[in-house]
Every structure is written in structure tokens, then in C-alpha cells.
């Protein structure tokens, strides 16, 4: 097991290198660089800008730039954000946590709805309720997220139940611990619902499919033949087998989540990575973008490895050598 993880971690390094290089390449292939924006300011001279460009090696080719960056990364220095003028890691740290909270909430929301719904639909296959709930989850999938967000915010502001965007209320600092939790939860509702609803359908269908497959298997029939109660057959025997493959999906779902959240984060004024990254790509804030790709890549792979470990833990058949 340990060797397996170490091997996976080793594999991580080239992966991360290639990923961040793609990020570098993408930003470099796009014409111009970050400092072009400054050139539009009548009060900044050309010399000042050349100075900047030389300082960050932007006047060199991609490979040289990447090499300099990589050398720094190996010293745990992820570079410097052009726009924010502080080390990338300091900006990311602040935002990463917020995105993490939102992702966590979305994962909880989607999984807590999709898994039971998938089970329910599988158990009631072809019945009206199966069709109805499947239909409902497709509705969530089919509404363009950004549009849904604005509609929800609009109605939230009309009814006044939920805050219209942001992460904390103005008086957050003065709230009690529980009050803080409630406040944060309230702010989480809209982004979570928007991002979550688009993911429910996929998971629900997947779970339903797995469950149907397992329900048709012989060991489930054998469990029935043993005279076990229907609940035990479904929730002990079928469920655990059906949910196992989902663990793998779980590890991979983070990637979609991180990118799916960007627009919603922006519209909801959620202080996460989404808006930061969008800005970084558009303004060609090179090191910020590359640093973020490295972080997300790292997190995702950690997610995959965790999923592997979890799978080995829940499925006695799997043993990693």
C-alpha cells in the first residue's frame, strides 16, 4: 500500500510539470503579456515597462521562462503575481480555502441528494417516481449555471431570505460561533444549489445504473433467498456494492467542480479561486495561473489517491502492490 502511494506520488511529479507547462504555454502563446495593460496608462513610460519585463524574464522564450519558474518552484517559491505584487502562494492560500469550503458544500449537497435519489429510482425502476425524479434531476442539469445564479439571486433579494452573494455578512466578525456558522451556511445556499444541481443528474444516473446492475446480481437474489429483510438486502448487500465504483468518481469529480464553479463564484461574489483564475487568464498573470494549475493539479491527484485508498479500504478484493 505504502509503496503504491509512493509510486503514485512519483508519477505526480511529471504530471504536474507537464500541466504547469501547458499553463505556461497557453499564456505565452496568446499574444501580448501582462504589462501590455500598463502600456495603456498615459502616465507610465516605456522604460518602466521594459524594466518589468526583464525582471520577470518575459522577454525570453517560453522554455527559458518555464525553466526559471521551475527552478524557483523546486525551492517552494511559486513566483510573484504581476497583478497583486505579492507571492502567488499568499494569494492562493486565501482563496483556496474559500473554494474548498464551497466545493465541500457542493459535494455534500450533490452526493446527499444524488445517491439516495439514485437508490430510490433504481429500487422503483420504471415506476412513475423513478421517471419523475430522473426528470427533475435533468432539469437541474439543463439550466445554464450563470443564468440560474442570477435568477436565484434576484429572487433571493426579492424575498430577502437569503443574502445576495458574498461569503460573510457585514457583521460576521461580531457573531457567535454558531451564528457564524449559520451566516456562512446562508451564503453557501445559492452557489451550492446552482453548482450542485448541475451535478446531481449525472451522479444520480450513475448510482441508479450501478444499483440496478447490483440488484440484478446473483448475490442479491441469494440474500433474498436467505430470507433477509428487503431493507437488509438493499441497504446492506446491494448498496455497498453499488456505491463502491462511486468512490473512484468521487476522486475525479473535484476537477469538474473547480472549473464549474468559476462563473458562479463570480456572479455570487464568492471569494474563491474562480474569479481570480478568470482574471489571471485574461490578464495573463502568468505565475498566478501556472501556480494555480499546479495547486489544483496537486489537489486533484491527492483526491485520486485518497479515492484509491478509500476504495482499497472498502473493497477487500483490491490490494495495491
Amino acid at each position, binding site marked *: 500500500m505504502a509503496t503504491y502511494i509512493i509510486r503514485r506520488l512519483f508519477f505526480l511529479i511529471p504530471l504536474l510539470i507537464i500541466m504547469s507547462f501547458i499553463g505556461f504555454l497557453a499564456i505565452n502563446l496568446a499574444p501580448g503579456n501582462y504589462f501590455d495593460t500598463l502600456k495603456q496608462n*498615459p502616465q507610465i513610460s516605456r522604460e518602466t515597462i521594459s524594466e518589468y519585463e526583464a525582471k520577470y524574464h518575459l522577454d525570453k522564450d517560453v522554455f527559458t521562462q518555464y525553466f526559471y519558474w521551475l527552478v524557483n518552484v523546486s525551492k517552494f517559491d511559486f513566483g510573484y503575481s504581476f497583478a*497583486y505584487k505579492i507571492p502567488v502562494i499568499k494569494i492562493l492560500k486565501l*482563496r483556496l480555502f474559500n473554494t474548498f469550503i464551497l466545493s465541500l458544500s457542493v459535494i455534500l449537497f450533490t452526493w446527499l441528494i444524488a445517491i439516495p435519489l439514485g437508490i430510490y429510482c433504481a429500487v422503483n425502476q420504471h415506476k412513475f417516481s423513478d421517471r419523475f425524479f430522473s426528470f427533475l434531476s435533468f432539469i437541474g442539469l439543463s439550466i445554464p449555471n450563470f443564468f440560474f445564479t442570477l435568477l436565484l439571486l434576484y429572487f433571493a433579494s426579492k424575498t430577502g431570505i437569503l443574502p445576495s452573494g458574498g461569503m460573510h455578512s457585514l457583521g460576521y466578525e461580531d457573531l457567535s460561533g454558531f451564528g457564524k456558522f449559520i451566516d456562512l451556511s446562508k451564503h453557501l445556499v445559492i452557489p451550492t444549489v446552482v453548482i450542485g444541481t448541475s451535478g446531481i443528474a449525472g451522479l444520480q444516473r450513475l448510482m441508479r445504473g450501478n444499483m440496478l446492475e447490483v440488484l440484478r446480481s446473483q448475490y442479491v437474489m441469494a440474500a433474498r433467498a436467505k430470507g433477509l429483510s428487503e431493507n437488509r438486502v438493499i441497504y446492506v448487500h446491494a448498496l455497498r456494492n453499488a456505491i463502491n465504483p462511486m468512490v473512484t468518481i468521487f476522486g475525479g469529480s473535484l476537477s469538474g467542480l473547480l472549473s464549474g464553479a468559476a462563473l458562479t463564484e463570480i456572479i*455570487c*461574489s464568492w*471569494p*474563491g479561486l474562480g474569479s481570480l483564475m478568470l482574471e489571471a487568464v485574461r490578464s495573463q498573470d502568468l505565475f498566478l495561473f501556472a501556480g494555480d494549475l499546479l495547486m489544483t493539479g496537486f489537489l486533484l491527484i491527492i483526491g485520486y489517491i485518497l479515492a484509491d485508498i478509500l476504495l482499497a479500504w472498502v473493497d477487500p478484493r483490491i490490494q495495491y502492490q
Partner: protein
Amino acid sequence: MVKPIKCSIFLLFLTFTLFSAIAKDQESKNSKYSGRIVLSTTSDPKSFNPIVAKETSTGTITNPIFEGLTTTNGVTTEVEPNLAQSWEVSEDGKTWTFYLRKDVKWFDGKVFTSDDVVFTFNQLIFNKDISTSSRDIFTIEGKPFKVEKVDEFTVKFTLPTKFAPFLRSLGQEILPKHLLSDVVENGHFNSHWGLDTKPGDLIGTGPFILESYLPAERITFKRNPNYWKKDKEGNRLPYLDKMSYVIVQNQDVALLKFQEGEIDYFGLRGQDFPILKPEEKKGNFTIYNTGPAFGTNYLIFNQNTGINPITGKPYVVPAKLKWFTNKKFRKAVAHVIDKESIINIIMNGLGFPQDSSMSPSSGFFYNPNVAKYEYNIKKARAILKEIGIFDRDNDGKAEDADGNIIKFNLFTNANNTQRIKISNIIRKDLERLGFTINFVSLEFNQLVSKLDSTFAWEAIILGLTGGIEPHFGNNVWQSSGHLHMWYPQQETPATAWEAEIDKIYNQGVQELDNNKRKALYDRWQEIVADELPFIYTVLPASIFAVRNKFGNLNPTSYGGAFHNLEEIYIKK
């Protein structure tokens, strides 16, 4: 057991009401103190360092913290004393002596002195190791200003030449020497006072102190209890206890937040007016329409006659260059800018046509008597026909005398949806002239790199933030300027009219008589309107909604709603 509790609650209640009655009594003497103002901004500051960072998002945040020697009055747009209480100028207009206020203290209690001023200029602005755009303002023809300490509270500036907008440019923020001189010596100033600074470490002299910063969420300031400014009764300003900026990227979400009462100020786009205007009473706010704003939108054609040294080809195809450099061509185009429709459609009727290169709100230097171009397609066609451009073969496309189809690329920046809409209306009308337009919206960086270094463009619709001081646009208007967009960085002016503008700018900066200056800049505006290097379109109206609870509010187009922030208080 029950009774005592009840009793004590009652007692508590009693004392509470008593205390609050007393408190109220005290407050009523000075009822203007306390309260919070909540504003919104569209993006995070990029730094807290006002020397290094020049983005508007940073300026918004550092403005209440740092101050300059002078300030521009938000109502009169006159230059007024700030940290300097008075000044003298020598007869040749080159030597300025500033007498500083003696009652100014930094947040940490240290007294503000001439050392700080000298330090800010000599160690920061004129320091080659520090990347700051301020250096360009205080450098004339490559020569920096000389800044010397005369005594503890007197500073002398020696200018290489006369410099008319000098006083206005001294709005430059002054930073504390005692905290920063070590940082400069260590070479860390460029990254100092970045976003990771502890709020308490940010030391200025302004009315508000940074209290907390939650990235992408909120910036909160608290009152500077030792601020030097006082009101007429001698009470220390500012009145407000706290000020917060909520960061809201999406304007519609900001609108919702304003409607809900979470924020106290909202800058309206034309489309928001019908939403908010009917709610004025109910929402207890007032909408101020202060007239034309400063942000311009214009169309430019590439008139660069240069040759790309790498490819050996001209930057602009010669046939096209011939159209673009033709004044009549540009005039015809100016006649198809449907300003009225643009205002009605995009600004919901709340905008102004722009004819002059200065905004009507810029006051003194604005010249309203310049050539105006009404929307008239027939007239435009007639002008084009004069220069040989019309549909020669009845294919719906116009050709020039050499038979070339009039076809060009039109760019604008992708992140400004309003500008894209304006461009589309203009594009449609250009097509009505029989032009073939390839309209593309580019990322801002890419657009700028075309404008600035590759010169591979034909027509662009763009905007600039205007001001009240014409000289601050010298980079744009002088033919050697980097932002002389239609043909930047010319060694000698390409045309007579450009040469004339150069002359005006060179005279204007040294002319200290305001009326003579105005005459010069009036002429400049006439030339621009006649030659049309920039074909101006429309200016949005500057409209904002502010809650009624604030006293001393005096909104203007130049200063906005809160130019006198320190005087604003919450009405009881």
C-alpha cells in the same frame, strides 16, 4: 427562584435604558459622530502600496489612507492646500516652496515632516529600483524635479522648466520615511505593503485607517481619531466610525445589494435608472445625475506610415492608409456615428454626445464650440464620393478610385460589453456606407499590444479616462507620445496639425496664466474635432444613488458622491 431573575432582568433593562439615555444625551452634542458607510467596488485592490500600484481598484482603497501636499476640490475642481498649508513660487515659475502643516501625525503618532516629503520623492519616486509610474509625471524631458528640505516643515521643489499642472500633480501620496527607509535600503519596497500586509502596519495620514481586508470580499476602514482636519466648530473629522468596501464583481449583484440596503451607494448604468428611480422614496435614497462622465468612447484609424522593421512591410496596407489618413474619410465616418441611438439603446437615454476631446464636465478647459457631426448617412456618402469612394459596380460594396473594396478590421476590447454594443451599432452604419467590416473583440492585453508594439490594426474602438487637466493627456496628444494611438512615437510630426498640437502642448505646460492656457487648449480641441484622429461617440451620464441618511453630501461629476468623505456623517 423565578422572581430574582425577573427582577434582575428588569434592573438590567432599566440600567440599559438609563445608560443609553445618557449616551444619547452626549451624542446629541456631537450627533454627527459614529456610523458606518458601506460602498462597493468591482475588484480587489492589487496592492496597498500607492507608489507601485496605479490601478483604479488600488487607488479607491488607498485614497482614504494617504494624502498629498495638495488636493483637488471635488466641487470647484480647484487645487487646494492639503498637507501643505501654503506655498510660494519664484518669478520664473520654477522654484516652489511649500510650507507644511505642523499638526499632521502619522497613524502611529509620529509627526509628519518635510523629511517624509523629501523621502517620498527622492527615495521612492526617483528611485530607479522602484517601479512606479509616478516618476514619469515628475520628470520633464528626462530631468527629474529637485526636492530639498528647507527646514522641518518647509520643502523646496526646483523644476527644470515651467510646469503648469505642477500643483495639481502634487496630489501625489506622501509616505512615511520612518517606516520605509529601511525597506527601500533592503530593496524590498516593490513588494512592500502588498495585500499580505497586516492592516495595522499600513501607516498614512488620511482620515481612515485600514482595519481589515478579506480578499475578494470586503475591505474595512476605521476612523482616524487623530486626523488633522477639523470642521467649522473645531471638531475633529471624520465623523464616520467605519467605512467598508464590499467587493462585488457583477454590477447587477451590486444593484441587488443596494436595493436590499446592504450597500449605501450604487453607480447606475442607464439601464438601472428605471429600476431604482421609482424606489427612491421607499428605499430612502436619492439618485443624483451629475451630467456627463469622464470616460470616453472613440473610434480611431491607424495612420501609422511606418514600416515594420522585422517583415519590411508597412504596418498598414498602403491603399488603406490612404483612406485612413484622408481627413474627409474620417469626416464621413464621423457622420455615421448614430450618437442618439447609441444613447437611447445602450445608455437607456441617459448619455451625452461627445464632440470635444474634453468632457463637458471638465469645466474650465472644456471648449463646447468645436465642429459637430450629425448622423447623416447621405452626407457621409456625398463626402466619400468627393474622395472617390462609392459603389462603382453596384455590388453593394464601396470601392475607392483604384477599385479597392473598402474593407477593414475593427477591434474593441472583449471585457467591456457596453463598448461592444456601441461598436456593433457603428459597424452596422459603416456597412451602410458600403464598407466591409470584420469586427472582432479582443482581450484587452492583446488589443494594447497591437496598439503599442505590433501596430497591426486598422480601426479600433476604445476608451480613455479623461480628466480636468489637459496636460495629463500629453502622452496621447503629442506626436511623440506612446499613446498617440493613431501613429505613436513619431520622431517628427507627420502632419501639420499634429505639429500644431505638439506646439500647443509644449506651450500649454509652461503657460502659467490660466486664461492663456485655456485659449491654447481650446484651439487644440478645435483641431481634434476638425481633423478627427479620435472620432468621439458618446459619454455616459454620471448617475449614482446614495442613501438619504448621509449629511454634508455634495455630489459632483468630477468628485463623485464622496469626495468630501471626511465631512460626511449619518443623519439622525
